[in-house]
């Protein structure tokens, strides 16, 4: 670790009604990876936004390379050498890699853009990062991992001295994360200061040198990573030790009836000949790399995307027998008792501009209506019931969903399917973008639902989540099912082996 390049001292920031940052201290040294941790809403992003000039601080000082500075916008921060690699990638899909990297500052020859120089400069950047990407490829044709690399290359091309990674691994597979870490180590070796924001405890232990923890807008403390345990960090973040115990054997009785049977499902390139069974009260984990076709399988079953062929059978509640169902749209799927909880809640899960009540009864408004008229009292009652049951944190059922945190939004989606009384729930990345404290609440809830007889399909890219929650695991790779195993025999290695089986 080198000398201190950046110091933020006593940073204070208030928004109407919220004290977002309460005299926070933070420093970064040259050649270190410094983790910034805290639950959602702890103030990490706000602090970084103050640093890069998006927000104006109320008080406090920022010292950068020995001088007191104040940036008024991201451009000024960039020019000084402080850049952010955002969680959501800001790339133009139809432009090439090189065009994206140099967007807004294209090298010119006369009035023409000098494409040749741009491509050469991009190549030089990639060489420096030791990664192989074709600068002339269209951005949209790259994998998410590669796109992230381009974003990093773009950051470095600004002559960066401090790079902030805002949850860079949220959309990456394990292999891609390894590549990312290799790059980060390389940047550290080049004496850059790196800020790493993440929710994933395992990564923090692997990649960072120091950890600064924030809670409720305040500074809690800074630790040397190798001298502390995960529990130390978690305790600092939430003040209590958490997490469900991982399962060692299936909680689902071996004679549990099959509630969903999928046979030879085909839907485009991403779903080829997929067959599996789901038992009553079971949590069936779907593991695989990003792009393995798990989400696509779920969407095809749910009728959200068209399918070419395949047979789907669902247990009839009255007779207890499997019956083939035709699912051509989500309308059919919901009628058949399936609920889908998307990985992208804000886009596909909740209507953020509407209240918790309106979201809770969205899937079964007809049960809370007389004729065409909505029974608002009944709606409110059932919403309140589930707010209490799921411990959703909200001032009231009328609250707009956009004002809730990620974990509470997820609870609203769960409530929607419970109000509908769906028996088969498909959780697609149930804890993506959810902070540590709320994460475990979702886990507990899923276990409770399964024990009450709901059947759950859980798609997850987090290995720890798959091993912690599943009774049985299905593994997919490049659109095909490559394996299936009981939790008792599953290991990280055996899953990874099957998850990469089709990749040459």
């Amino acid at each position, binding site marked *: 670790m080198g000398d201190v390049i950046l110091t933020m001292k006593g940073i204070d920031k208030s928004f109407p009604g919220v004290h977002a940052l309460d005299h926070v201290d933070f420093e970064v040294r040259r050649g270190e990876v410094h983790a910034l941790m805290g639950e959602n809403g702890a103030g990490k992003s706000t602090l970084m936004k103050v640093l890069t000039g998006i927000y104006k601080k109320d008080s406090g000082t920022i010292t950068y390379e020995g001088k007191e500075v104040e940036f008024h916008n991201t451009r000024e921060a960039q020019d000084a050498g402080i850049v952010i690699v955002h969680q959501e990638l800001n790339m133009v899909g139809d432009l090439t890699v090189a065009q994206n990297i140099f967007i807004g500052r294209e090298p010119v020859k006369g009035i023409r853009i000098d494409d040749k120089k741009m491509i050469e400069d991009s190549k030089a950047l990639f060489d420096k990062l030791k990664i192989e990407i074709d600068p002339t490829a269209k951005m949209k044709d790259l994998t998410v991992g590669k796109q992230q690399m381009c974003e990093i290359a773009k950051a470095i091309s600004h002559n960066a001295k401090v790079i902030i990674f805002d949850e860079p691994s949220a959309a990456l597979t394990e292999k891609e994360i390894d590549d990312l870490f290799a790059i980060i180590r390389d940047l550290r070796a080049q004496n850059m200061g790196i800020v790493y924001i993440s929710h994933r405890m395992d990564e923090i232990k692997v990649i960072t040198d120091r950890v600064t923890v924030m809670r409720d807008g305040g500074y809690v403390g800074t630790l040397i990573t190798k001298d502390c345990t995960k529990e130390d960090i978690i305790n600092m973040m939430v003040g209590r030790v958490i997490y469900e115990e991982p399962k060692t054997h299936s909680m689902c009785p071996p004679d549990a009836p099959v509630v969903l049977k999928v046979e030879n499902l085909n839907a485009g390139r991403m779903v080829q000949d997929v067959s599996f069974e789901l038992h009553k009260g079971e949590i069936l984990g779907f593991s695989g790399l990003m792009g393995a076709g798990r989400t696509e399988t779920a969407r095809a079953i749910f009728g959200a995307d068209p399918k070419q062929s395949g047979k789907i059978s669902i247990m009839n509640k009255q007779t207890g027998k499997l019956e083939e169902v035709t699912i051509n749209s989500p309308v059919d799927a919901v009628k058949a008792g399936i609920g889908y909880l998307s990985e992208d809640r804000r886009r596909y899960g909740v209507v*953020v501009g509407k209240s918790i009540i309106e979201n809770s009864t969205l899937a079964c*408004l007809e049960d809370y209506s007389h004729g065409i008229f909505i029974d608002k009292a009944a709606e409110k009652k059932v919403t309140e019931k589930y707010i209490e049951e799921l411990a959703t944190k909200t001032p009231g059922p009328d609250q707009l969903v956009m004002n809730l945190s990620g974990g509470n939004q997820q609870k609203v989606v769960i409530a929607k399917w419970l109000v509908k009384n769906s028996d088969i729930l498909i959780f697609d990345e149930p804890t993506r973008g959810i902070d540590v404290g709320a994460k475990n609440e979702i886990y507990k809830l899923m276990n409770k639902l399964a024990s009450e007889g709901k059947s759950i399909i859980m798609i997850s890219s987090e290995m720890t989540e798959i091993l912690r929650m599943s009774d049985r695991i299905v593994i997919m790779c490049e659109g095909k099912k490559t394996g299936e195993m009981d939790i008792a025999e599953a290991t990280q290695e055996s899953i990874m082996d099957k998850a990469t089986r089709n990749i040459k």
Partner: protein
Amino acid sequence: MEKFKQNPVVKKIGFNRIILIGVLILMYIVFCVAIKGFAAAGADHLMNTLNYVYFLGFLSLGVTFSIATGGIDFSIGPVMFCCALIGGYCFNSYKQPLGLCIFYIVLVGLAFGIFNGYMIAYQSIPPFIISMASMNIAKGIGAVFTHVNSQSFPQSSDPVNGWFTRIVSYDGFPVGLVVFTVAAVICGIIMYNTKAGRYILCLGSNEEAVRLSGVDTRKYKMIAYVICGICAGIAAVYFVATYTTVQPGYGDQYNNEAIAGCVMGGTSMTGGIASILGTVIGVFIISLLQEGILAFGFGKDIQLIVTGIIVIVAVYADVTARRRKN
């Protein structure tokens, strides 16, 4: 001010709506002070304003539903004229009974609503394109059907069909206002208390999330445009009952006025948020403004400019309010 905003009654009506009512009253006072004779001829001006409110009000109520889905309907004005022309031709040339012609008028509106709704909801053609096309089609059909002749409807002195004008006013009693109020209440109930209204607002806010909740979003999207079409039909009835003649080839200017009334009332152009009460107040403001501009001695052209500016200001206010929220 904050305390006033938190008052339950104020919250129920909406703070912005109260401001708008204030604007409406203020505007009337300004006109009375600034324009000589405006107050003296108060009854006349109010009557003219109300006449404008009726047909524009129905257009505006209808388009509130389209906008609530996140779409738009630029065809309502010409559709209104097309309805009136077809009804008028049936009355004048085919000698159909007036009652039946009124029915035809609403039917034509319904037909346009079904066409627009079907193309937008089930064929996924952008509302902007379809309604622009419908606008031209409506103008064309109106002209072709009537062989480019303007159509007259019975005056109040007509011994047989004079009752028609009484749906506007009867011995000075504003029947139209009662009908419009009832229609607005019905629209409010549809928007806020029925499944259709709930789904229309939700899909306007996030269509994919509603679809993935197992709701047939296409059906409800179509319903919004059908309501819009029916309202254009009813607007046509009130237009001809008020002004008794209708010319082929016109009607576009009322699109802007209807949309302006709707947006000014707090309905968001991006969908998901709609206020029927706001639309009603907005329509009153637009109508009074039109009357005021004429009373000032300016012509139709100034009216167009003012309406255009109002649309921009209303949408700008909506967009900036949203940006501040985020």
